C-alpha cells in the first residue's frame, strides 16, 4: 500500500546542511495501523511530509499503491501536530471539515452526510457551528480528526497528534483512533515520541534511531485487537513490548549506527 524506499532528506539551510533522515525503508500493508516512534528531532515530521508529498526527499522514493508520490496524493489525509494552526480560524468547525470535500467536488447532500457523520464520530455534533478557537485543545484535535475521516482517505497520516493534550483526553483520543481504524479499514501511520502510546495503538511499531535517522527496529505488536486503557497496559505482553522498544531507543541514542532492521 505505502512503500518508503531508501528515503533521505538533507535540509540545506544556507551554509549548514542538516541530514534529518538518512536512509529509511519500510512498507505498510493495506489496512494496517503502524506506529512510528522515535526521539524528538529524529526526523519524524520530515518523513511524514515526504510521504504526504509536501516535501521533496533528497534521495529515495515514496510509493502509494504502486504510484510514486511527487505531490500531495488524493486519498491521503494528514493530521498535523499543530492542530491550532492547521484549522482555519476564519471558518466554523463545519466549514473546516467541509472545505476539502468541496474541493473534491462532492455533491452537497453527500458533503452534509460526511460532515455530520464524522463530527458525530468524534463527538462534536453540538459544536459544528462553533469556531475552532472557541474549543479546547483536545476538541480542536478532534475537529482535525473529523476533517481527516470525512475526507475518506485510504491512508491516514498522524503526526504526534496528541502531544499537546492532557492525559485523560489523550487516552480518549487514542481509543478514538483505534475505533476509527477498525471501522473504516483505513491504513494508518501514527507518529509519536511516546513509547507507551506506540505500543498501545499499533499493530506494528517502527522504531527510529536518532538523527541521522534509520529504522532501528520493526516490532510486531501481538496484543488482542480489542484494547482498553487499563487492561492492555497491565498486560504482561504490553510490558514486554514496551521494554523492547525502550531498549532499542536507548541503544539508538548511544549512537552506534545499527544495521537497518
Amino acid at each position, binding site marked *: 500500500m505505502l512503500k518508503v524506499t531508501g528515503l533521505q532528506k538533507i535540509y540545506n539551510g544556507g551554509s549548514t546542511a542538516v541530514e534529518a533522515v538518512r536512509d529509511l525503508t519500510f512498507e505498510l500493508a493495506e489496512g494496517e495501523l503502524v506506529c512510528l516512534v522515535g526521539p524528538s528531532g529524529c526526523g519524524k515530521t520530515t518523513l511524514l*511530509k515526504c510521504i*504526504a*508529498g*509536501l516535501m521533496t526527499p533528497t534521495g529515495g522514493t515514496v510509493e502509494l499503491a504502486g504510484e510514486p508520490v511527487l505531490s*500531495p496524493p*488524493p486519498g*491521503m*489525509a*494528514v493530521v*498535523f501536530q*499543530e492542530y*491550532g*494552526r*492547521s484549522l*482555519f*480560524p*476564519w*471558518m466554523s468547525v463545519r466549514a473546516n471539515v467541509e*472545505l*476539502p470535500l468541496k*474541493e*473534491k467536488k462532492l455533491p452537497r447532500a453527500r458533503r452534509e452526510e460526511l460532515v455530520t457523520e464524522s463530527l458525530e464520530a468524534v463527538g462534536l455534533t453540538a459544536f459544528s457551528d462553533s*469556531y475552532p*478557537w*472557541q*474549543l*479546547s*485543545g483536545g476538541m480542536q484535535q478532534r475537529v482535525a480528526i473529523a*476533517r481527516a475521516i470525512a*475526507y475518506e482517505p485510504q491512508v491516514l497520516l498522524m503526526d504526534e497528534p496528541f502531544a499537546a493534550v492532557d492525559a485523560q483526553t489523550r487516552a480518549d483520543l487514542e481509543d478514538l483512533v483505534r475505533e476509527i481504524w477498525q471501522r473504516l479499514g483505513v491504513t494508518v501511520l501514527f507518529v509519536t515520541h511516546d513509547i507507551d502510546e506506540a505500543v498501545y495503538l499499533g499493530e506494528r511499531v517502527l522504531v527510529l534511531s536518532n538523527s541521522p535517522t534509520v529504522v532501528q527496529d520493526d516490532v510486531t505488536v501481538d496484543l488482542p485487537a480489542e484494547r482498553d486503557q487499563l487492561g492492555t497496559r497491565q498486560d504482561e505482553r504490553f510490558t514486554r513490548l514496551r521494554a523492547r522498544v525502550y531498549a532499542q531507543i536507548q541503544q539508538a541514542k548511544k549512537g552506534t549506527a545499527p544495521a537497518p532492521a
Partner: protein
Amino acid sequence: MSTATAQAPTPGGVRRPGVRARTAPDRPLLGTLGILALLLSWEAVPRLGIVPERYFPPVSEVLTTLVERAGTAPFWEAVGHTLYGWALGLAIAFAAAVLLGFVLGSTPRVRAFTTSTVDFLRPIPSVALIPLAVLMYGTDIRSTLLLVIYACFWLIYIQVLYGVADVDPVAEQTARSYGLGRLSRIRHVVWPTTLPYLMTGLRLAAAVGLILSITAQLIIGSPGIGQQITNAQQGGAVALVYAWIVATGILGVVINIGVRALERRVLRWHTSVRGEAAA
C-alpha cells in the same frame, strides 16, 4: 499642510494589524467631557478677546453657520463631490493594491525585484504630484483621483504584502495535503490571512484619502469641500471657513466609525475582535 500627513503613517510600523486597547467602561463619559471642555474653551477664547474674533469666531457662531449651510443643496453637493473623489479613488487604489499585492507578493523573486522601486515611490508625498495632475487633467475630478489613488495605493499595497507573507506554513500545508489548488488556497487561506492587514491598510487609506480629496480641491480648485473653503476665505466669510473645517472633521469621524464597524464584521474570527478566547 498635508505634505506630512500624506506619507506619515508608515505601514511598516503597523506589524500587528487591528490590535488595540480594550475600551474601559468610563471611556465614553470621559470622551464626552473632553469634547464639552473643548467647545467651552472655543467659545470662551474669542469672547474673552484672547484671540481676535475676526480670525477666530466663537463656536456658537461657527456651528450656527454650519447648521444653516447644511440646509442648502450646494452644501451637500460639495460634500458629495468630496466623498465621490474619496470613494472612487479609494476603491481604485484598493482594487489595484490587492491585485498587485497578491500577484507580486506571492512570488518572492518578483517581490525582491520590485522592493527598491516601491521603497523609492512610496515616500513621495501625493501633493508633490499636484503640478503634474494640473498639467494632465486641469481641475477635472481626475486630478483629485490621481492624488487620492497615489496616496491610498501604497498604504494598502504594503499591508497586502505583509499579509501575503504571513501565511502560516502549517495552514498552507494542510490546504495542500487536502488537495486545494492554487486558486483555492488563495481564496481560503491567503485571502483570510491577509484580511486583518488589509483592513488596517484600508483604515489608514480611508483617512488619508479624505485628506487628499480635500487638499486637491483646496489647491487645484476642483469642486468640493476644499474649493468651498477657498471660496469662503476669499469672500472673507471666516465663520464659514471654520464651519467647513468642522464639517470635514465630522466627515472624518464618520468614515472612521464606518471602517471600524466593517473591520469588526469582517474580522469577527480574528484575535483583535473576538476578545478573550482559549488559545
